[in-house]
C-alpha cells in the first residue's frame, strides 16, 4: 500500500491553492518591501519612509482604539446576550434567530445602510433624536472628528457581537443543568451563578473567540472603508486601510508592502496565541 503518498495526493490540490493564494503573495510582499518600483534592492528604505509618514502613528493609535474598543464591547455584549438567550422565555427561538441577523448581513450592505442611517441631514438616527427633542441640533456622526471612530466601533460591535453570543451560548448549553441546580442549592443568586458557574465554564470559549475577534479587527477593511475611507482627516484611518490606500490610491506598493510586513508580524503573534490556546483546549477536554 502507498499510504503516505496517497495522503499527499489528497492534500495536494488544497496545498496548491493555498500556495498560490497565500504563500506566494506573502513571499512577494516580502520581496516588494525591500525593493523600489524598478525592482532594485533598497534595503530598509521603504520601512524608513513609511514609518516616517505622518499618517503612520495616527493609524497606529486609531488601530489600537479600534481593536480594544471593538473587542471589549463585542465580548461584553456578546456574553450578556448569550446569558440572556440561555434563559427560558417565550419566543426564545425567534429572539435567537433575530440576534444573528447583524452577523449574517454582508458587511458592505450593513456599512451602506448605517452610512445612510447616520447621515447628518437625512439620516433616521438624527431624525429620531432631534424630533422628540433629545438633541437640539443634528450631529454630524460621520463628519465630526470626535464621534466618527466611536461610531465605527459601535457598528463593528453591532456586526460581530452575535458571533460571540452564539459561540458562548453553545458553550453555556454544554454545561450540565445539575451544576446550576447545585449552585442554587448552595445559595447562589442568579448573578452568582453567572460569575461562579457560567463564566468559568465558558472561559476557554471566550478566550478563543476574543483572539479571533482581535485577528478580525486587525484585518478589518469593509465597514470603515465603505463609510469613511479612513476620513475625516485620518480620524478613522486604521493600519489595514492605510496599507490599502498607500498601495492602491497612492500607488506606493513598496511602502505599502513594508507596512504590511510589520503588520503581518503583529497579526501572526496573535494567531500564534490563538492556535496555542485552542490546541490547549483540545488537550484539556480529553
Amino acid at each position: 500500500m502507498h499510504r503516505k503518498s496517497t495522503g499527499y495526493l489528497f492534500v495536494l490540490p488544497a496545498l496548491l491553492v493555498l500556495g498560490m493564494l497565500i504563500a506566494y503573495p506573502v513571499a512577494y510582499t516580502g520581496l516588494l518591501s525591500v525593493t523600489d518600483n524598478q525592482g532594485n534592492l533598497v534595503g530598509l528604505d521603504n520601512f524608513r519612509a513609511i514609518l516616517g509618514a505622518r499618517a503612520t502613528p495616527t493609524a497606529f493609535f486609531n488601530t489600537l482604539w479600534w481593536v480594544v474598543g471593538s473587542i471589549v464591547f463585542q465580548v461584553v455584549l456578546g456574553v450578556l446576550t448569550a446569558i440572556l438567550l440561555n434563559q427560558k422565555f417565550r419566543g426564545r427561538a425567534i429572539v435567537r434567530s433575530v440576534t444573528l441577523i447583524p452577523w449574517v448581513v454582508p458587511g458592505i450592505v450593513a456599512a451602506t445602510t448605517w452610512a445612510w442611517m447616520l447621515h447628518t441631514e437625512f439620516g433616521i438616527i438624527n431624525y429620531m433624536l432631534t424630533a422628540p427633542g433629545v438633541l437640539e441640533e443634528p450631529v454630524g456622526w460621520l463628519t465630526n472628528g470626535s464621534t466618527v471612530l466611536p461610531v465605527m466601533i459601535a457598528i463593528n460591535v453591532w456586526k460581530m457581537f452575535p458571533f460571540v453570543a452564539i459561540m458562548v451560548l453553545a458553550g453555556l448549553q454544554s454545561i450540565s443543568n445539575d451544576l446550576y441546580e447545585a449552585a442554587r442549592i448552595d445559595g447562589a443568586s442568579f448573578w452568582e451563578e453567572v460569575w461562579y458557574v457560567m463564566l468559568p465554564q465558558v472561559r476557554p470559549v471566550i478566550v478563543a473567540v476574543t483572539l479571533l475577534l482581535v485577528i478580525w479587527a486587525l484585518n478589518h477593511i469593509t465597514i470603515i472603508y465603505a463609510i469613511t475611507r479612513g476620513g475625516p482627516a485620518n480620524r478613522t484611518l486604521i493600519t489595514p486601510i492605510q496599507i490599502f490606500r498607500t498601495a492602491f490610491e497612492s500607488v506606493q506598493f513598496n511602502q505599502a508592502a513594508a507596512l504590511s510586513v510589520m503588520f503581518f508580524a503583529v497579526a501572526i503573534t496573535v494567531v500564534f496565541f490563538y492556535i496555542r490556546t485552542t490546541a490547549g483546549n483540545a488537550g484539556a477536554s480529553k
Partner: protein
Amino acid sequence: MGSVSIRDVRKSYGSMEILHGVSIDIADGEFVVLVGPSGCGKSTLLRMLAGLEEITGGEIAIDDKVVNALHPKERDIAMVFQSYALYPHMTVAQNMGFSLKLGRAPKEEIGRRVAKAADMLSLTPYLDRYPRQLSGGQRQRVAMGRAMVRDPKVFLFDEPLSNLDAKLRVQMRSEIKQNHQRLKTTTVYVTHDQIEAMTMADRIVVMHDGVVEQIGTPLELYDFPRNLFVAAFIGSPSMNILSGKLSGNSFITADSSAINLPFIPASTNDETVSLGIRPEHFALDPNGMAAEVITVEPTGSETQVAMLLGGHEVVAVFRERITTRPGECLTVKLDPERIHLFDGQSGLRLGQD
C-alpha cells in the same frame, strides 16, 4: 436538624398529573428512603423538597415551616446529586466551601469546617485537587462533603450511588450510613435499588405511579407488605406469587393442588386470590408438595432452585446444600406462618396481620 412534613403533595406537568397526593411525615434525625421503579415520582418529590421543582398542590414543611414558596437556599437543605454536580473549575476545598463562601462566612470558618468534613470523609490529602483528578468514589465523597459543611436541617440524596461499581457501592452505602449515625441529620434518600433501601433506611417509602404504596421500617415491609406491588418489589430474589382460589382454609392452585392456610382470610368476597411466599420460606419435607426442578444455582452459602410448583414457576432458596438436577422432583413445604394472601382484584393484603 429538622423534621419534614409532606402533606397531600401533587405535581402536574400540564394536564398530566404525576404525583397524586403524597403524604409523608419524617421525624427529626430519621433516615428515610424513597424507593420505587423509575418513573414513580420519587426523584420529582425529592426535587420538590429541594425547591428545584414547583409544588402544584399540597404543602411541604421543614421544621413546621411551610417552604412551598421558598427558594432552595432559604430552605436550609443540602443535596447530593446522582452526577455529583461538582464544579469542575474548583478544587475539592473550593467545592466544599462554596456554599459558605456564598453565605459570606469568614475565611477561617470556611477553612475550619471544610477541614473537619474532609477529615471525616478521608479527603484531606485531596483538598487541592480538581474533580477530574479524582476517582468516582472520591467524587462521591466530595459531593457529600459539600453537603456536610453546611450543617443543614435536611440532607437530600438523589440516587447518589448509581454511578459507582458494585463493590464501591456497598462500601459507600455503609459510609453514608455511618455518617448519618454520627451527624444524625434528617436524611431523605432516593433510590430505585430496594437493597440500598433495605440496608440503609430507618423507614422506607415505597412509591409506584405517583402514589405511596406503603411506609414502614424495612422489616415491616418485608414481613407485612400491604399489597402485591410492595410484596414483589421488596426482597431479592423477589416473592413468589401464585394465583388460585380459596376453598375453606385451603388455597387451591391452578393445577388443583391444595395448600393449607394457617388462618381463614377475613374477606373472601372474591374467591380468586394471590398467594405470596418468599424464596427462603420453602423447606424440604418428604410429606410436602411435589415440585419439578428447572434450574439449580448454588452460591456456596445457599442454593437457589427454580422449580415448577402448582403450575407456577417459583424460586426457592435453601440454606442446606442440595444435590438435585433439572428434571428431578423435590418435595417441599411452604412455611404456613409466612404465607401472604392478596386479594385477586385489588392486590391488597388479606387476613389478619
